[in-house]
């Protein structure tokens, strides 16, 4: 665990303390960034920008909620900012209609590994990837996601549905090849 004074030292600009805090969170947060990114190269930019934001906003951390959660939220927000502006469904009502249709069930292969899953995520369209991460992995509600991405709740639902359907198809292909 990190001791409590380290945050104060970091705010004061203590470089050693900052590096310690960074080392504590670096690999965890890199994992978060990878999940939200199209590629390893883009995840690196989000990772670095996210940490700069963590340190420059540290004085605003009020001590409410876990510090882990606070750092993670900044990383997630940095990732959202990176992709939000290009979302193709922005300002379009085309995706607002939400239809949940039937799906074939797929057996999930046990031997699927982190790398495979990460690959599937990174190849999803940006909107699908953001919504799926936020809903399925982070556990936000559609209401919260609609606020974060500035989209309607129905768009969030339909993006999630499409993401799951796409993932299911890809998993199906994976099963077929093994």
């Amino acid at each position: 665990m990190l001791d409590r004074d380290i945050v104060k030292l970091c705010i004061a600009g203590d470089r050693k303390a900052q590096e310690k805090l960074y080392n504590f969170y670096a690999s965890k947060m890199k994992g978060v960034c990878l999940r939200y990114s199209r590629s390893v190269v883009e995840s690196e930019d989000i990772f670095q920008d996210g940490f700069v934001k963590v340190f420059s906003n540290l004085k605003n951390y009020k001590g409410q909620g876990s510090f882990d959660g606070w750092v993670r939220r900044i990383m997630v927000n940095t990732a959202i900012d990176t992709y939000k502006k290009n979302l193709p469904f922005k300002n379009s009502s085309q995706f607002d209609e939400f239809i949940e249709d039937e799906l074939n069930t797929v057996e999930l292969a046990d031997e699927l590994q982190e790398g495979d899953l990460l690959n599937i995520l990174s190849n999803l369209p940006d909107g699908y990837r953001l919504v799926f991460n936020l809903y399925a992995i982070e556990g936000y509600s559609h209401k919260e996601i609609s606020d974060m991405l500035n989209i309607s709740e129905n768009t969030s639902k339909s993006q999630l549905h499409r993401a799951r359907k796409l993932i299911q198809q890809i998993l199906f292909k994976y099963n077929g090849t093994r």
Partner: protein
Amino acid sequence: MKNEYSDIDNLFKERLSDMEGNVEPNAWSKISDKIDASMSVNTYPKISAIKSWMYYAAVSSVIIITVAAVWVNEATSSKETTAISTGNKSIEAQENISSTGNTLAVVIEKEHVSATQNPTVKKEIKNTKKASVVEFATLEDRKEVILPDGSTALLNRNSSISYSDSYLKDYTIFVTGEVFFNLGSTSQKTVHIITHLADVEATESSFIVKTNKKELYDEIAVSSGKVSYSSLIENHDRMFILAGNKAVIGATGKWKQEAITSVNYNDWVTQKIVFTNTKLNSVFETLEKYYNVSLTTNNSEILNCRFTGTFERNNIDEILQVLSVSFDLSFNQKSQNYILSGKGCK
């Protein structure tokens, strides 16, 4: 209803929510540089007590200088001619600003490239447990990658491919951007290429897979052999594309097939550009895409001229010289922008 998907959600949540990533060794030094850059603005008021007298001294000297400057200004503006000449100067100054603005943009772009040191990046993500993924990505260059089975993949600009280290078991590759695959002389296995919209299967063949995330469509253009695909979004039977044809697959799962009409669809692969009685209008379009430059004219009649010829491994300057001689044109270059002038054709 929701339970149908809870398996997928849970699978990703369990495996990925606490996944750790491989951190670049020099990431911290880059981050701390950026923190320094942002702090140098903020720390201004936080000058320590000992130095504060220097701060006040500095401020007061600034005031003195300002007063002096105003006084000098007033003195000079009393002359009659200065009104006009300062007018000219301010225009010059503006021009200077805009031209330095341009160079700044170029410098930043260059830094972006050099920051990654080698524009083609090969990365390996070692994950916590067993899997590892190999990723190749290009920015401003093109790059050939030899796959573990000996097949080749040629990456156009801003493209990437990745596959897991168990490639020789699953033969599955993920693609973004534009990639030319040449499969099969060394292996008879079926290779699966997965874009964000389609699953492509191929043995012994050569073809281009192009993904477009912004407009959400994929394109598969086959040069030799036979390639099959199915949309990942809609269920349908596998469709086959024969050599000389291409398929376009949209985000809604709709697709269409047609013959390849442009001879230059794979110019970046063959490094050969062919024009047959082609209007300069579309000659320029092809060249702009190939060389990542912008071509403009000061006379739209130039675009009416028709050109026949083949270029192989030439650079853009050589090509423009050929066009200039053919149509009595001249051209100026400003970084990536070329302006052509001349009489043109009716």
